[in-house]
């Protein structure tokens, strides 16, 4: 507190007057003879305490009246922050994506800028200013403190919205480094919507002496709806919509594939809850599609859209060739295999005799099960097949002619078939969750496979001999048959797992799609094989990028491999879309010893900020208190006569 007319404080010295009057007013008692003192004594004992209390209260009120009169003339001013002439001020303006929230036709950022302009004009002309914008990081706008208001106001206009989340504590901590002088008083004026997510980081402030003035451009009851996640599994898509409003809402979402609306979906989203719906995509061509999901417009539109590249693939067609067909289908070579493949592939079973009549072009996988030998022509046909980046899988059996496999057909195989061994035990080949399943299989017989150069052993027996081998020509060879002659694997739970794993090897050659949050650093950025990047707007650059700033689908072009797709979206899951405001008590708890004064950027903003910056005279309050004291004095000094 300070005083505009401190000379009047001399008046405080006359506070002694009522005390003197009080002392002098004690009259000398007159003597009266009385019959009986007992009742007088008891009454005096009981009543005098109240009386004295009243007298002291009266004295106190009279002293206070004199103090108040002196203070009123001295014109006291309450200062919320120091009024030192030597102040450095930093303006921090939140430009995270939640500041794009519209209210009364303007965004929160625009409101923040307007408020900042008002403050800049209210500051003393000689006061140095610097400006920074912040979201998850601090960006200098006017880094060096200046008194030139023209520059500051002009640069203020250049602050644009980002698609990043907020980290206000980091911004405060980082901005403190830009204060120039040690001996100045430091003040940070922070413009933000004070959404609770922006204050959730664990950053601790370096300097607790700084004063923060918070300008709140947020709303007390904001409502927002957002696409909080897209999950793709094969040809199935899972969409999650979040309701950040205080009421339930039926939200319309539209899925666009290659800029054409694919379908509309309604979500009945409960207040402050998320809802997920899954569905399968159908009737679209195989290959990469650029998609986005968009919900109906709300006050914050930036989180209404989610972009994703989608590699649609029909189920692969597999040809199963039974080299030893049996009358009982169950005893055949491909019965169990066909069953295991049903969910993930479109299969066709033929006998080896029919192979010449079957065109391989219709298939992407061929399974050869206990085929005794292949004709030269078919070896050539299969070689052509794999040259098209397609896959062949061999399951051997007791009909296999090893000499043929190791000579005429050897060009196809990644291994030689050495001999048939009895028994065996599988090694736990990376199926850690199913260790027990692996142990429970019985191997009766197996082929000893001798790997060739450039081949790869994918799965092993416990004696390190190969169980599954892969050649660099996409030919896969198992050491056991696909029926129950060599092992009981086809009737054990392990079998579908092995087949899934096998199909996984095929798809590993697929195009890679990666999800990325806006602002996240790209791990591939330093890869020398990247020849360029295609941006969401279709523009091609010849250099790589370090981080993405705009939501959309980015395509990384590689010199030596297929392109990679980046689904870049804002990080809704971080909580930035939840616009619920932090309370002042929570804020003070987070800031610890750093003091903060928060005011709203409402119609009283100018009046309030003046109070904060330059204090407020309190004589009106003092006059009211004075009047109340006068009334109290009158009442106490003239108790009701009884």
């Amino acid at each position, binding site marked *: 507190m300070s005083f505009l007319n401190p000379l009047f404080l001399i008046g405080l010295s006359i506070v002694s007057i009522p005390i003197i009057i009080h002392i002098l007013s004690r009259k000398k008692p007159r003597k009266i003879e009385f*019959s009986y003192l007992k009742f007088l004594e*008891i009454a005096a004992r009981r009543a005098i305490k109240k009386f004295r209390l009243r007298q002291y209260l009266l004295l106190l009120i009279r002293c206070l009246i004199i103090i108040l009169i002196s203070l009123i003339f001295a014109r006291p001013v309450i200062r919320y922050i120091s009024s030192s002439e030597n102040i450095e001020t930093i303006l921090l303006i939140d430009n995270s994506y939640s500041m794009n929230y519209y209210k009364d036709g303007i965004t929160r950022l625009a409101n923040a800028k307007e408020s900042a302009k008002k403050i800049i004009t209210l500051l003393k002309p000689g006061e140095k200013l610097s400006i920074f914008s912040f979201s998850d990081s601090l960006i200098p706008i006017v880094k060096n403190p200046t008194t030139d208001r023209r520059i500051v106001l002009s640069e203020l206009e250049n602050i644009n919205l980002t698609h990043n989340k907020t980290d206000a504590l980091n911004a405060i901590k980082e901005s403190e480094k830009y204060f120039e002088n040690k001996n100045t008083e430091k003040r940070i004026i922070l413009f933000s919507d004070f959404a609770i997510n922006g204050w959730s980081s664990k950053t601790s402030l370096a300097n607790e002496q700084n004063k923060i003035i918070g300008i709140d451009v947020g709303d007390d009851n904001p409502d927002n709806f957002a696409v909080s996640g897209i999950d793709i599994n094969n040809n199935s898509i899972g969409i999650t919509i979040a309701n950040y409003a205080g009421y339930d809402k039926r939200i319309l979402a539209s899925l666009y594939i290659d800029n054409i609306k694919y379908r509309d979906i309604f979500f009945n989203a409960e207040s402050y809850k998320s809802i997920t719906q899954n569905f399968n995509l159908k009737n679209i061509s195989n290959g990469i599609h650029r998609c986005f999901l968009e919900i109906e417009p709300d006050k914050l539109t930036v989180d209404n859209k989610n972009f994703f590249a989608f590699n649609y693939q029909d189920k692969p067609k597999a040809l199963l060739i039974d080299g030893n067909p049996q009358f009982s289908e169950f005893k055949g070579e491909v019965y169990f295999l066909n069953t295991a493949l049903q969910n993930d592939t479109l299969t066709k079973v033929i006998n080896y005799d029919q192979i010449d009549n079957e065109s391989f072009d219709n298939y992407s996988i061929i399974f050869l099960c206990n085929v005794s030998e292949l004709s030269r022509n078919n070896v050539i046909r299969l070689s052509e097949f794999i040259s098209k980046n397609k896959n062949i899988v061999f399951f051997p059996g007791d009909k296999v002619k090893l000499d043929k496999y190791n000579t005429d057909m050897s060009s196809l195989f990644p291994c030689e078939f050495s001999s048939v061994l009895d028994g065996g035990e599988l090694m736990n080949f990376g199926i850690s969750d199913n260790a027990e399943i692996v142990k429970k299989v019985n191997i009766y017989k197996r082929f000893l496979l001798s790997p060739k150069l450039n081949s790869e052993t994918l799965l092993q027996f416990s004696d390190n001999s190969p169980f599954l081998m892969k050649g660099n020509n996409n030919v896969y060879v198992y050491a056991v048959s696909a029926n129950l002659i060599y092992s009981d694997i086809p009737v054990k739970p392990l079998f579908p797992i092995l087949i899934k794993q096998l199909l996984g090897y095929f798809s590993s050659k697929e195009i890679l799609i990666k999800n990325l949050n806006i602002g996240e650093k790209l791990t591939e950025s330093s890869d020398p094989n990247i020849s360029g990047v295609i941006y969401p707007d279709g523009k091609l650059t010849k250099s790589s990028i370090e981080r993405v700033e705009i939501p959309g689908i980015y395509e990384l072009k590689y010199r030596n491999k297929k392109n990679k797709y980046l689904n870049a979206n804002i990080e809704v899951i971080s909580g930035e879309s939840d616009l619920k405001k932090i309370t002042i008590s929570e804020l003070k708890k987070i800031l610890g010893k750093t003091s903060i004064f928060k005011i709203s950027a409402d119609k009283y903003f100018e009046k309030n900020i003046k109070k904060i910056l330059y204090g407020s005279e309190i004589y009106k309050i003092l006059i009211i208190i004075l009047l109340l004291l006068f009334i109290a004095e009158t009442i106490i000094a003239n108790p009701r006569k*009884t």
Partner: protein
Amino acid sequence: MKQFLDPLIIAKLSTMYLKAKFIVEGFISGLHSSRFKGHSLEFAQHREYSFGDELKHLDWTVYAKSDKYFIKQYEEETNLKSYIMLDKSASMGYKSNGISKLEYASYIAASLAYMMIKQSDSVGLLLYDSKIKKNIPPRSNLSHLSVILDELSNLKAEGQTDISKILLEFSKNLKKRTLIILLSDLLEDQENIIKSVKNYRFAKHEVIVFHILDKTEEILDISGNVLFKEVESENTLITEPDIIKKEYRKLISEFIEKYKLEFHKSDIDYSYLNTSTPLDLAITNYLSKRENI
């Protein structure tokens, strides 16, 4: 007639006899005609005239019919023995203005003595403070009245009070059933006084208590910073009556109420009077009691 029973007016009369006569006659003239007679001069029977009987009691109607002298006999002739016990301690001398409690009490005593002797009741007077200062035994002749009135005329309030002790001490002297009329400010240990007075009731005596206080003692109508000095001791107290007035009045009120309640329980007549109360109240109370004896 009420004005003639105003203590201040009574005080202006010269002798105690006149005061007593004035009060009693004033009281009687204010009553309906037969009350006084009805209670104390009720006709009982005739007896033959004998020498020395007052001629005014001759029944001339009987004489006219029978030519014999018969005297009317009245109820009051069954003599009542009464004792007026008057507290003359220093505290009874207190007066704020007008008359002191002692003067007021003496007027009541004189009036009652006058009335009782006029009704041929025998009445005695006991004056006391912490000791019995004067004991005039009960008699019913007219010359005895002047003895009592003379004593009442020369009263001076002095000495400390010890009513309970006096009451206990005096009760030993009473053999026959007696009407005790106690006149005092009763400003002592309340429990002891109540206990002592009740003793008389246990001994089958009748008791009337006239509790007399000054108006100021009742309402403490004093202002300013005051040093109070107790008249019966050297005790003093400095206080402001304005501050303690409310509490004091409450205490006095409780004090009086307690006497009223306790005496009522033991069938003891209790009258609270202050020195500005008209004196007829005392006589009314007496007559009411006398009727029931």
